[in-house]
């Protein structure tokens, strides 16, 4: 599946300033791995021991992936995967 991964401003130093990255992936985990392959610095910033850090939110077309299957959430062609900080609000 061809999907777009949206990178928040706080992580763009690790992507050379890129705000959106087009990758291939059947699941959120595969899409993020493809992003990490292209920009290795991102991996350690948002994952720890293979899972997302606790202050990282990931959404597929606006829905938190923890309401679906987490990193195993399946993607459709054209989906938007958004990474956002979890420390806002309240």
């Amino acid at each position: 599946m061809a999907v777009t991964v949206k990178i928040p401003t706080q992580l763009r130093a690790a992507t050379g300033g890129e705000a959106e990255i087009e990758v291939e992936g059947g699941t959120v985990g595969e899409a993020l791995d493809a992003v990490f392959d292209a920009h290795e610095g991102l991996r350690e910033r948002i994952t720890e021991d293979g899972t997302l850090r606790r202050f990282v939110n990931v959404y597929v077309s606006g829905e938190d992936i923890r309401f679906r299957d987490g990193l195993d959430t399946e993607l459709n062609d054209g989906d938007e995967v958004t990474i956002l900080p979890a420390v806002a609000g309240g």
Partner: protein
Amino acid sequence: MEVRSGPLLAHAEVFFVGDEKEGSEKVSNLQGLRCKECGTEYELEARYVCEQCFGPLEVAYDFSGIDAAEAKRKIQAGPAGIWRYADFLPFDERPKDPLEPGLTPLVKADRLAERLGIGEVWVKNDAANPTHSFKDRVVAVAIAKAKELGFQTIACASTGNLANAVAAHAAAAGLESYVFVPADLEEQKLLATGVYGTRLVGVRGNYDDVNRLCTELAETRPWAFVNVNLRPYYAEGSKTIAYETIEQLGWSLPDRIVCPIASGSLFTKLGRGISEWLEVGLVEGELPAFHGAQAEGCNPVAEAYAEGWEVCKPQRPDTIAKSLAIGNPADGPYAVELARATGGSVEAVTDEEIAAGIRLLAETTGIFTETAGGVTTAVLAKLAEAGTIGADDRVVAVITGEGLKTLDAVRAGHRVEEIDPSLDSFEREIAPASPATVAV
């Protein structure tokens, strides 16, 4: 009923001339922003996320230069609101604030304590703020910082109380504001926001949807989102509830604190505020036991506490306590840690218990609180019932908002008895005259 609004009002007028030593050079207590997860430090700017690990940033201070006796004198001679604690807030100079919140009453609730079998209950009534909730404190701090950083527009994601506060304080400061709320919010909270002339945006979704939208907007708009890009400063305002409580208890600590949890920011900042004053020597003792209060219809922090988790599993809220309806709480993990570390707990109560809590507080203290206060009171009652809190305890219950904002919660709790305007009708319908009454 004893009410302590501070021993301090008599001193309020002298601070303008007496609070700084002439010729003395003020040393800044501020160090910068620091990541709570990895410790990376940043300048004091509109930034809230660590670029290294995505953790939350908070303001770092160095209080080693503070003399407790001098700090106490300065506080007591300070203004009658949160800015008396300016040395413990993220400013080098006390901000000018036309709508200063704080110094709300701490009410000794003897009838409530007696009803529940608790030694002492003190109610911190934060409905007595300019827009009737504790959010005035955090917004006052955030807007003062926004002005210092040069922002022209203030914004927020809100469950209602914050909306009121942002709209009001922005109006008082003459700044443009945008307020984002779930579209199905209580009418009272919408009206009490729109009246200030803000751009009120109802988002078709729940609070977590609103919050996500605002997090995205904060990346593209040059605005001060008080609880997004200014969150490290904003959250500091909650510490002032802890400072006031200590001061109003005669510079001492309660044994336990019961406090509502939405994002967990207020809860954890109360802990931080007390820790700071213990460190400086303004109060002696140890951290009270912290008991968090949530609604069963949105209890991600209580669930994480009960299950022994390090993180909170997000939920889709379904509760009458809309001001606590955050299914994905930013400070949830820290709230769980604080409850565990202090021997407290995080509890949840049903919507029926919340409505009963509102009535219990009203009937025993004369304080009419909103649903969040009903959650707090219901949890206090639940802890008393379980024997966790008892006759040896001095407890502070943090009541964060005003009952007039959530009228639907109590509509079924009473009835109006209608009569004709005559003695006959009154005696027939309401209270028959007794022989003694007739004799008089």
